[in-house]
């Protein structure tokens, strides 16, 4: 006896109004070790299928009362993972294509011999097993990804939190007795731990965007407020580095739809990035413009610029422009985050740069099509 490699016996349903054909198929398939159900017409077949959940069904295309096409449509919708094969005496390409569009796996033209029936059954059931296995693996992978995010957020953050808390404790109980060099070591440790925390956070954010679990509250907002908040946040750093930070914005801007927090982080990320490659005395300029459909915000610096061969790579995770001997800080995920956030806003992030002259990041946002003022509207 031929088994299909599966320990359980496969159940096959045959729906055909010709008794001779039904019985012939039954005999062939039962001899192969399958369980077989038969039905002489559509309604009966569908009822049987719903009750017994077959793995596979052969359906005659041309039957009185209900056409094979209808049955295929119903079964592929109602019976999960069932493999449907159309039996037809008029095997036209058109009807075959239609059956497949409705969910059939293949068709068997009449007349056919037992070998053809056996071969097609075997192939169809293998297809079914593969389909089920693929889905199981995909589900497992998704689950693992979700678990991994949870794992990272708990298991990687807690030790970092504890290390920072220990450093706090160390400073609290003995900070006033430390020599300058000890203080410096502690300071550097703190900084590195902080960087690692940042990397974990960024990585988590990106994973969340990718699997759709990032919480974003999309409301109608003015890009102006986002930019002024971001500039305010970045001003101290720029002052410290001796870099001027300027904004040019039209008096009034049409609203866009977005999540305030993530957009502020896009701007602070890009401005922060610019400060790393802009020398003291340099300048970072945020310029906003709009037409009837789009608002563009460009963040330009007059820093070292990015070599053309590196430009296409800067949005890649963990890519760094800094050469080995340059001091680099940050997670290497900031621009990846910005790109993902822009995409989730139906926006675009672009970059152009000239070595020795500076870099311009351009963010393009679609303007909200807002019928009611102040309403929060999702862009379609």
């Amino acid at each position: 006896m031929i088994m299909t490699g599966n320990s359980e016996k496969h159940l096959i349903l045959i729906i055909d109004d010709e008794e001779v054909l039904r019985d012939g198929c039954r005999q062939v398939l039962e001899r192969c070790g399958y369980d077989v159900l038969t039905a002489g017409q559509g309604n009966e077949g569908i009822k049987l299928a719903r009750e017994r959940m077959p793995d596979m069904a052969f359906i005659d295309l041309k039957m009185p009362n209900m056409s094979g096409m209808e049955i295929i449509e119903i079964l592929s919708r109602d019976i999960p993972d069932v493999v449907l094969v159309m039996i037809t005496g008029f095997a036209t390409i058109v009807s075959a294509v239609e059956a497949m569009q409705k969910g059939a796996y293949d068709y068997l033209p009449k007349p056919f011999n037992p070998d053809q029936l056996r071969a097609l059954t075997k192939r169809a059931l293998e297809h079914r097993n593969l389909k089920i296995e693929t889905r199981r693996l995909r589900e497992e992978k998704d689950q693992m990804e979700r678990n991994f995010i949870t794992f990272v957020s708990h298991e990687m953050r807690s030790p970092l939190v504890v290390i920072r808390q220990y450093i706090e404790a160390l400073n609290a109980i003995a900070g006033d007795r430390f020599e300058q060099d000890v203080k410096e070591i502690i300071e550097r440790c703190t900084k590195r731990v902080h960087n690692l925390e940042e990397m974990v956070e960024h990585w988590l954010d990106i994973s969340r965007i990718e699997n759709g679990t990032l919480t974003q509250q999309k409301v109608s907002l003015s890009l102006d407020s986002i930019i002024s908040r971001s500039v305010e946040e970045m001003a101290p750093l720029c002052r410290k580095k001796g870099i001027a930070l300027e904004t040019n914005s039209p008096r009034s801007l049409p609203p866009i739809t977005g999540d305030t927090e993530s957009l502020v982080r896009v701007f602070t990320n890009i401005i922060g990035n610019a400060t790393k490659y802009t020398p003291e005395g340099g300048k970072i300029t945020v310029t906003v413009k709009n037409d009837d459909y789009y608002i563009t915000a460009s963040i330009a610096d007059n820093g070292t610029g990015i070599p053309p061969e590196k430009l296409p790579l800067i949005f890649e995770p963990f890519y760094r422009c800094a050469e080995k001997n340059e001091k680099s800080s940050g997670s290497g995920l900031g621009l990846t985050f910005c790109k993902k956030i822009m995409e989730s806003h139906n926006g675009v992030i672009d970059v152009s740069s000239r070595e020795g002259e500076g870099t311009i990041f351009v963010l393009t946002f679609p303007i909200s099509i807002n019928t009611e003022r102040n309403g929060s509207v999702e862009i379609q």
Partner: protein
Amino acid sequence: MTAKKKILLIDDDKDFLFATKLILEKGGYEVFLAEDGKTGVEMWKSINPDLAIIDMMMETWGEGFSVLNKIRATDTGKETPLFMLSAVDLQGPYQSFEPPPEFPTVNKVLQKPIKADDLLGYIRQALGVK
């Protein structure tokens, strides 16, 4: 000599307990540690602390809340200042913790890690206004 004020710390991370204990002792408090919610509630009843700090995320996500409820339900727990500790980012990256409406009053929600000066400042404030 006045007795030291007593603070109860409930957190399932030993190292976090130890680090925070050092800070609190430096601040002149007598510190009691509980590594799980059940022990925490028992210690609350036996030592009668002047303030308790409870981690929100012990074992299961609800344990911190249930500890808080149990402590608030005791006689001494009604007026005593209670602080909650939260690791950043529970639901999403940007949302800090917001207590549900039926949540018993917490005097302060602190983010981990907490700066020594801030922690001692909040405690002084909470104990001072008592």
